[in-house]
């Protein structure tokens, strides 16, 4: 185990708490300011996958369960895509979010990974997202986020986000909120 810079960890905790609050409060314009212009935001499909062919479990990865490069994802947005997603939520005609869902994002297990060559930091975290549209439409999902954050003016910008949902069949009608 490598020791973690306590200041970095504190900075990351603060950044993720603020991000979750902005999204839960639907301050999408402020949230977009935390997103880098070169963002890639992806949510892959996931499959129950054989283990029988694995002899070396050191080589096991969750990635084996995820959609491969040429496959279909659940979300595959660049900056224009994510901006359109936000515009839609603000259009007044995104009926799946009219009135807006009540949400709570709990972000935990924040773990800085490798520092990248361009100064970016890979960050793993766990997400619990709750969405309520009244007593008949309540859903939870949990996921791993694998982010790449770029330090910028004493802050971070989100350059890459891979959200690995902990289900193969998504429950809860749709994915109408930002994860």
């Amino acid at each position, binding site marked *: 185990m490598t020791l973690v810079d306590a200041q970095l960890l504190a900075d990351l905790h603060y950044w993720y708490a603020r991000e979750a609050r902005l999204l839960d409060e639907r301050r999408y314009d402020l949230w977009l300011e935390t997103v880098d212009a070169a963002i890639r935001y992806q*949510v892959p*499909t996931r*499959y*129950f*996958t*054989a283990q029988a062919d694995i002899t070396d479990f050191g080589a096991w990865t969750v990635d084996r369960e995820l959609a491969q490069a*040429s*496959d*279909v*994802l*659940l*979300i*595959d*947005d660049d900056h224009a*895509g994510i901006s*359109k*997603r936000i515009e*839609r939520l603000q*259009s*007044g*005609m*995104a*009926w*799946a*979010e009219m009135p807006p869902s009540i949400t709570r994002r709990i972000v935990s297990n924040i773990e800085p990974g490798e520092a990248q060559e361009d100064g970016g930091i890979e960050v793993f975290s766990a997400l619990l997202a709750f969405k309520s549209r009244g007593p*008949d*439409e309540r859903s939870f999902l949990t996921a791993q986020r694998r982010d790449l954050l770029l330090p910028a003016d004493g802050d971070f910008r989100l350059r890459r986000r891979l959200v690995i949902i902990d289900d*193969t*069949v*998504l*429950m*809860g*009608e*749709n*994915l*109408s909120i930002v994860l």
Partner: protein
Amino acid sequence: MDARHDLIERSVAPDASWIRPDIFSDEALYRLEQERIFGRCWLLLGHESQLPEPGSFFRTHMGEEPILVTRTLEGEVRAFLNLCRHRGAQLCHEDRGVAKSFNCRYHGWAYACDGKLLAAPGEQQLYYGELDREEWGLIRVAQVESYKGLVFGNFDPDAPPLADYLGNMAWYLDILLDRRAGGTELLGVQRWRIPANWKIVAENHVGDEYHVGFTHGSQLTRPIESRAAPAPLAREIRPELGHGIGVDIIPEDLSPGERGGFDEEVNEYLRSIAGEMTERLGEMRPRLFPIHGLVFPTLGMVPILNSIRVVHPKGPNEIELWSYCMVDRDAPKRVKEILVQRSVSAFGPAGSFEQDDSANWTGVTRNTAGHQARKHRLNLSMGLGHEGEVDGLRGEVGLTASDINQRGFYLRWVQEMTGGPA
């Protein structure tokens, strides 16, 4: 005539100009659908491209039944109930992959990719060598047939061949499936649950252009006054047999790419295959741009966004939607990527269009279930009596929008549901 028969006939007007909400929530009707619709109709299993080599397999459903689809060592596609013949344990637990055999984890019975029982532990000592392997192979789906890459299954050994079942719909499906010599491939799948009855989803695919201007208002830029006017170059088509498709008729001065609003890279690809399309499909069909459609009962499609989907019922109030992207197999990699990304941004659980669809379907299912709501009829009359024909098109034709295809869907439903035991 039993009570169920009365309920069926009471649920849909003789001309299908109305339906009753019971059709979306009644438990007895739903049970009967499993027997008479999902037990007798041709249902999409998947695509040959999902089974690239001998031993390839994937799991899916036919109605509520869990199904295992395999490619045998001889290259044939087969489908089975995904259960062991010994005690009925679930046989295959992986979503997809390649296997030499399927071994039940309960007592160890092993089956070949063609469904034959290969071995049971203790065959000689415990079964005294008396277990008949031939008799105890996997339970096969009675009929499996492909139509130009798409693989269908049917539980009914007496069901008509797939080509007869598709009828005139095949002529339209060819615009997607047969436009290139290399055919198509299916990518995906996105899977998600929606608390909705399967028929409200199916009827949306078969013919509902009316909802587009309102449900999908967040995605449209044209003025709201124009959204309920008949689209001059689009038609809803009821080929026959409960299937339906909506097409745009591409004007002479536009290329298909321009009509579809694709990126230039895709337009260039479409221009490059125009000659091949005309050679394979004739002059008329390359000028038809399929927008949406349904092969009865549950194979939906939104071809303008490369989306192919199956509505798997999970009870009267629940579906599991499986959504794939279908692309020309020989299209350049970059073109496939653009089309897939475009599809995913609009369709699927996070799609800018489909999020709002699922909200509607859920609302219909929930809010029509009440005792009071079920006393009243729901309107399906748009364009009734104004169905016509168009030179060169196969089947009856209505305006975009019209309920012509939804009426065809529900009339086929009544026909299947009242057909009695096969």
